[in-house]
């Protein structure tokens, strides 16, 4: 049992760092999507990758690197509130755009349509 625990403590920092790195890469991918997608609504989808997967992986990575359980609890609360407030703000943005009359681009879009308005 202690050997398993030792192994866990040996691998914990490496695992945490790896998860942080993956989370950071996902955030960059989300940013690339925001820059490439053609209109407001599709860009919102790219940003949601950063909101969900990147944030989750980064927080789990930070929890693995945390020095004490108190920090883990705080990170868990941060994660919970991020997941409760994130969709609310996304919906508020999308709803405001729809109410203001912004029409989404519909149908299959290729390279010619990209690169912003």
């Amino acid at each position: 049992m202690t050997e398993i625990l030792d192994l866990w403590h040996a691998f914990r920092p490496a695992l945490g760092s790896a998860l942080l790195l993956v989370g950071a890469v996902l955030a960059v991918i989300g940013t690339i999507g925001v820059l490439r997608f053609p209109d407001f609504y599709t860009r919102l989808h790219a940003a949601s990758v950063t909101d969900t997967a990147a944030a989750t992986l980064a927080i789990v990575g930070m929890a693995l690197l945390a020095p004490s359980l108190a920090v883990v609890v705080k990170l868990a609360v941060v994660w919970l509130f991020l997941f409760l407030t994130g969709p609310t703000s996304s919906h508020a943005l999308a709803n405001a755009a729809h109410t203001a009359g912004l029409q989404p681009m519909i149908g299959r879009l290729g390279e010619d349509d990209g690169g912003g308005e």
Partner: protein
Amino acid sequence: MFETGATGRVGYFLGLITVLIALWLGLSWDYSLKPVIASLGAVSIFLSAVLAYRFDILDREGSPYGRLFQLMAYWVWLMVEIFKANWVVIKACLRSTLDINPALVKVKTGCESDLARTVFANSITLTPGTVSVEIEGDKILVHALFEEEAGPGAFDEMDRRAREASDGRRKP
């Protein structure tokens, strides 16, 4: 359909107090046993509860802890769905030639209570590739990055699970 009597209110009040105490203990951790700080915590929890009562938000939406386990089980299922959907959007972001098929679709929901509808609409927004744009009655306007991901029936399982987690199984 739902508890609204005096016993229900007391239950929501106790649930809110319990969650506030747990949150306070979790956030303040080892300071929690010092008397001055602990009494400040007690006062702030009491004030929050009184405010919640005065704002009249002590109902099954303001304090949905009676269904905590069902909602947590739903959350676990949702996390798997979110990661699966993330993969689709990540591929769309990185494809060398832009190839997306955005669409606006109307999704009919079987969720009746406001809580279940909120859970369902927020789940749609949380899942990358779909955003709920507007809610009109029992129809939700959804913008999707790929039309084929939001075809008929694509949200049926999420709808059913959100309804069962928030409101319980419908009686046959």
